[in-house]
């Protein structure tokens, strides 16, 4: 009976339905049939009960002066069958669900480990070699990071949180696990062999991420455990890529030396989750906006006044509680060890570029720095080969490639 139902269900399951999400992982193949088994059992009983209710409601409506016919007020056979049959059907649900579930809990030995950190209100995924993503995409008015998952091997997410409980939820992968502070939980997935993107290019020319099917932009990552103000914006985009593309993608994320400081700063703004609290359009949020603050003198809760410069920004990133602007309460934790010096400088330069009076200055500084990086990089390589700098993740950013 189970196999019959699962066959019926698998015909319905994997297809994209307007009311059931397209499946992108191996779990869907086992879990969706269980859902549809329960669905059809439930639909049968619901229709049966409602049909009887409506039928009785019409046939036995009260007629003035007519006495109801007496009928038995219990019937052992009937009562036993409507106790036993649902029990059996539910035992099947339990057993099947239990088997499907156990399979989702034990990660295979060959799984690629990715460390996940949940923090109010963004996800950080640390790929092998400590690589984190710089790509982002605008979803629902927020720039969320883009994460890649390979098709050629399972991925094991080892997760923790720095503040409150979050929950790592990928609907298309049919999986979810709570993320706790002060402990690790894990979750693994194996993407179906249907890549959504490919990553082409090489280290010298740079890499480009291309969408394969124009209708499929990848899958959503959500936070499913309520965690405060921007809970609903604690998302991400999961793209599925094949094995070689996955390696390319990691390469692309690890090498930032060919991205100029302003562009890199903007990428980090969303990739490191700064955008959860700091706007760049002047809007006040959980933290102060970055727009136009460069060079201004700010007043702090301890009464001190400091001019916003590289040193101040560096301190704010590494020791957020050292100086807290008046009108704000500190919600930020230290980024020490999670950003390198060039990244700090890029954020500072980006902030500089957000002040109209300093935009040109910031651009110039960024270009000079990029040229320096390039010189450093090309020094050991064959001189004279004009290297084209790679295109950064989002062309919309309008990164100006410096010509020499």
């Amino acid at each position, binding site marked *: 009976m189970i196999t019959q139902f699962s066959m019926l269900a698998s015909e319905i399951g994997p297809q994209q339905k307007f009311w059931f999400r397209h499946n992108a992982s191996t779990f869907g193949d086992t879990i969706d049939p269980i859902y549809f088994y329960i669905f059809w059992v439930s639909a049968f009983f619901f229709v049966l009960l409602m049909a009887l209710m409506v039928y009785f409601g019409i046939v036995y409506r009260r007629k003035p002066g007519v006495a109801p016919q007496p009928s038995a007020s219990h019937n052992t056979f009937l009562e036993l069958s409507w106790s036993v049959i649902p029990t059996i059907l539910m035992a099947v649900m339990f057993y099947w669900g239990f088997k499907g*579930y156990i399979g989702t809990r034990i990660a295979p030995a060959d799984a690629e480990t990715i460390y996940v950190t949940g923090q109010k209100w963004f996800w950080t995924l640390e790929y092998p070699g400590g690589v984190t993503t710089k790509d982002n995409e605008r979803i629902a008015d927020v720039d969320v990071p883009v994460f890649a998952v390979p098709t050629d091997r399972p991925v094991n997410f080892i997760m923790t949180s720095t503040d409150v409980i979050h929950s790592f939820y990928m609907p298309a992968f049919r999986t979810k696990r709570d993320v706790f502070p002060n*402990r690790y939980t894990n979750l693994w997935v194996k993407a179906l062999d249907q890549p959504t993107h490919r990553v082409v290019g090489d280290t010298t020319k740079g890499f480009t991420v291309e969408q394969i099917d124009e209708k499929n932009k990848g899958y959503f990552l959500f936070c499913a455990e309520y965690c405060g103000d921007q809970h609903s914006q604690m998302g991400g985009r999961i793209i599925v890529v094949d094995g070689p593309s996955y390696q390319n993608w990691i390469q692309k994320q690890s090498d930032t030396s060919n991205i100029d400081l302003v562009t890199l700063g903007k990428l980090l703004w969303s990739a490191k989750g700064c955008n959860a609290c700091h706007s760049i359009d002047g809007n006040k949020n959980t933290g102060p906006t970055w727009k136009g603050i460069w060079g201004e003198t700010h007043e702090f809760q301890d009464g001190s006044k400091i001019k916003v410069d590289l040193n101040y920004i560096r301190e704010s990133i590494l020791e957020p509680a050292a100086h807290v602007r008046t009108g704000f309460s500190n919600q930020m934790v230290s980024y020490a060890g999670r950003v390198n010096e060039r990244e700090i400088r890029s954020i500072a330069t980006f902030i500089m570029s957000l002040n109209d009076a300093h935009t040109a200055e910031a651009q110039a500084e960024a270009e000079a720095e990029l040229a320096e990086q390039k010189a450093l990089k090309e020094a050991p390589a064959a001189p004279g080969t004009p290297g084209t700098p790679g295109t950064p993740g989002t062309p919309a950013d309008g990164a100006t490639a410096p010509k020499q």
Partner: protein
Amino acid sequence: MSAGHHDVSYLAPKETLFKTVWSWVYTIDHKKIGVMYLCAVLAMFFLGGVFALLLRMELWEPTKTTVEGVTGTFLPTVNTADGQQITVNNMYNRMFSLHGTIMVFLFIIPSIPAALGNIFLPIMLGAKDVAFPRLNLMSWYTYVFGGVFALYSLIAGGVETGWTFYTPYSTTTNWGNVTSMVLAAFILGFSSIFTGMNFIVTVHKLRVPGMGWFDMPLFVWAVYATAIIQVLATPVLGITLLMVVFERLFHIGIFDPALGGDPVLFQHFFWFYSHPAVYIMILPGFGIISEILAVHCRKRLFGYRAIAFSSIAIAAISFLVWGHHMFTSETAVANVVFSALTFLVAIPTAIKVFNWVATMYKSSISWTTPMLYAAAFLFCFTIGGLTGPPLATLATDIHLHDTYFVVAHFHYVMMGGTVLAFVGGLHHWWPKFTGRMYNENWARLGCILVFIGFNVTFFTQFFMGTLGMPRRYATYVDEFTTWHQVSTVGSWILGIGFLIHLMVFLQSLVAGRKAGANPWGGLTFEWEAASPPIEHNFSHEPVMTHGPYDYDTALPPHCDPKDFPLPDPALVRRVHGAH
């Protein structure tokens, strides 16, 4: 016990206004306490409903917006004392938290037991009052006290922790007045315990002589089962909330991971109460549906004992299933055990639904508003019940956990179950405790609108759930927009339906036709009393002459045999045997 002035309606005013007011605020009459509870819970239902409508409004648009420079938002700009601006997200978070907290702790838990139960449980047992009338009054004032705390939190900035107060979020957030709201829930717990203790003792000790356990109306059985849960589960919530308060005030670290505490322990404690609490909410609704079906179908309930026992079984098993709220956080072994136990609780519930539908067979159904509500209940509660298994099944719950599927499921159970039963019961007993009839056609219209609005609002949310829309989201990705807008339109229909009911009730109180003692032809003791009942309920202690549902053999009190003809005794003997 002397007759005379006690034989007047309990609603009758006293000589002076002051004495009338005093007769209410210092009453130990279970009916007056019940009516006061009823007014309070209806006010809270209104308040919680306003928050629900507001949060559905917020969800009309998918995009994120901060208050400054937004277009098309109806939310006001708010600045806190230290000049911090509140985002729309924060407003939304507070709205769903207040909606949840008010609806759960101030409305739905006391709704049926403390309001309708208080009025009718003693009368249905043929008693003059509950066992401890002064404790009953104290329960009411404890409720008021807790309500004051809750309203204070609301006015002083609200809370944005959700009604579940999950740690460490609830112990670390700076927003609002979490401490006072937690204390409110703690105090309201006492009120619930007092009511529960009172009802258990009343059922044990104040049944009319000759009334055995299986002669009790099923509403009494349901409220009795509820009371057991109230007494046994609420203290655990009390101590948990107290620890949260200590955590916030003294940082004791029990639930705080930063100090080596365990936030999952909080979830265990919380759900050890709050899962049984779900049955505190729904079991009395089952009782009301049993009463409505029997009276308005003029039929002995099919499988009386099965329904009675299943109430007790549900109460017992409800204590063993709390772990299914933690399928995404707990260890695999614990999850498997809790999944199995959760299915166990589904079976007695399924049996009840079958029994109710079977009761309609060969009956004489009068489609009054209460009966319409009973049918609406069967429709919605069956959906609510059947969407339980996908959440109890481990593999599928992992996908559906904390999504709109869960939101839809529990609204189908709590609103489609308890609230529809409550409003149905309110219409069913309205003539009895107010002494006036309501306008049947307008009430029917209200019922139909509530039914349609409810299903439009919440059925869409199942689809959002299977598509993966997480709950408690102030903003969402564009593809959910249509579903959310349909749901929001549904909430307006729902609101209009309830508004019509409010008008119908007000009209009835002002200009309603006087109700007879037994307008529906019920057989239980409350229909023997006058409408509205006298102060001590009965002028003479009622006598058990028939079972509560012997519609085939007994003529309802105060009724004309022409209106309520009995079937041929020979036929009755053939079906039921001689007894």
